[in-house]
């Protein structure tokens, strides 16, 4: 039994330990967010007064609604494609095929490379003079002209997949590797074919991890900024639209930008909480690890 004073000093130590993190949190996140909230309700360029005009203007504008839709299309499209790419990939890499360590390294590349560099390389590779179109026009029969990839919607989704699929892939792979092989062996012994083992044992067991990883991909894709900024062309998701308000207009439209930022933050939080709820349910009783 610890003395009364001792438990008090314990709490004090815990609070002191958390102090730097709390200062950082309030100074660099909470207060800036609060400021953004206030700004979004101020008339443009003023420090007093309240208005809903900034929201009204953005949400009633057809362009504004298209921007929201576009952001979701990009984020959800790239998340779905990332899952489709990651699951087979993780299943292969788990088998320790020849050179698997090299491929593991390759998967990590987009994570450590600055997004801008990735986007630059992708623009060069998929461009009209890039290797992709050279391959199509020179080596594939019946293809007459170059195919447009850069600055199109499908191209942008693919760029997102390049950048953000590792989140899903790494999570799926680490869950697959911690899977107990004896469960699969039990399935095989009971007469299941390898396909049945995969379909009815392995996939259900790793589904929570796949979904948890896809949440990370979704968050990254929803908030993506650098890539659509230089590779989006006319497709400007919410993040770029926010930056446009303060960089293109003189004087900068901080209140309009803040209102869009609030809409974006709220959408992400709402969507994430719905998604996490779904993921928890799909994960069964255990939920996410």
């Amino acid at each position, binding site marked *: 039994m610890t003395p009364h004073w001792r438990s008090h000093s314990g709490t004090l130590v815990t609070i002191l330990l958390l102090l730097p993190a709390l200062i950082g949190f309030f100074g660099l996140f909470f207060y*800036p967010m609060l400021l953004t909230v206030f700004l979004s309700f101020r008339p443009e360029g003023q420090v007093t007064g309240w208005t809903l005009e900034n929201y009204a203007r953005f949400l009633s504008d057809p362009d504004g609604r298209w921007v929201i839709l576009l952001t979701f299309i990009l984020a959800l499209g790239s998340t779905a494609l990332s899952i489709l790419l990651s699951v087979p990939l993780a299943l292969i890499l788990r088998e320790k095929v020849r050179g698997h360590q090299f491929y593991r390294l390759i998967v990590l590349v987009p994570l450590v490379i*600055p997004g801008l560099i990735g986007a630059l390389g992708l623009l060069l590779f998929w461009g009209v003079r890039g290797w992709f179109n050279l391959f199509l026009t020179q080596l594939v029969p019946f293809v007459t002209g170059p195919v447009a990839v850069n600055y199109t919607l499908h191209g942008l989704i693919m760029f997102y997949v390049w950048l953000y699929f590792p989140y899903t892939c790494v*999570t799926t792979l680490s869950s697959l590797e911690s899977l107990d092989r004896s469960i699969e062996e039990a399935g095989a012994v009971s007469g299941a074919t390898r396909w049945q083992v995969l379909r009815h044992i392995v996939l259900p067991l790793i589904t929570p991890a796949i979904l948890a990883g896809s949440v990370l991909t979704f968050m990254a894709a929803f*908030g993506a900024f*650098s890539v659509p900024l*230089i590779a989006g062309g006319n497709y400007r998701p919410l993040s770029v639209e926010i930056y446009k308000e303060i960089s293109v207009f003189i004087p900068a439209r901080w209140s309009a930008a803040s209102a869009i930022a609030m809409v974006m933050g709220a959408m992400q939080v709402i969507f994430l909480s719905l998604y996490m709820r779904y993921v928890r349910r799909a994960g069964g009783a255990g939920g996410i690890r």
Partner: protein
Amino acid sequence: MTLTRAYVRALWDGRMILGYTLLLSLTLFIVAPFLMIALRSVGKGWFYRLWLPPQLTLDWYRWAVEVGNIPEVMKNTLIIGIIATAISTVIGIFAGWAFGRRQMPGKEVAMAVILLPRMIPPITYALGVAKIFYTLELVDTYLGVALAHVSVCAPYGILVLSATFEGLDERVLEAADVCGANTIKRFFYVVLPLIMPGILASMIFTFTHSYNEFTLTLLTYGPNTVTLPVRTYLAVGDGYWEITSAMAVIMVIPSLVILAMIQRRAEPEKLVGGFKGV
């Protein structure tokens, strides 16, 4: 239905070939853009439909260094990265110890709140950070940009370090006590070697995030604190693809060193933060 089934079966039977095709196309998909950048940075007169540049040159690197001011930019990036890593690591060690080792009510909630910045797109709070830094005159200072980076980097440090400290085995510490080590000895000979890999991993990850951070830098940088991502962005806007590629090559080298370190020393799933829930 039977057709689909037959199709799936055929795919399943050819899975070895399919698997290697997938791996090869993935490698191409990820690596080819870098090859294009590398070739573009040393190519000259590469205008027509050619697979490889007709002439090689190092002029673009000279341009990048002289006009793009890369050494200065690299210095800024490293200084900002080091400050951001130091602050984030200190925050991470303290908070990680509190979360990993100490009892407290509402731990889950506190952790979720402190990690909240990871759930929100950075651009949304970058606006407020920029506004505040303008009034505090922190914009265009090393400390200012580094502090802005901390808002992104610190959550990763806290996550990695609290997992590290949580994994510290109580029995090993007790064994040290039993063997007669005092607190200082115990810390330097037992605890420190055990947590060092975690601290190192946390530093690598936070530095990577700071090195790659673009959104918050773009809103808080100035003429004296141009970092590599911002410099690349400005170069893309200028439209000189060759010089931009040369900059990109210079910029990618530290990332590849980091990648090698991650592969050797740390678990990649910690980099994505996909452990212990999301």
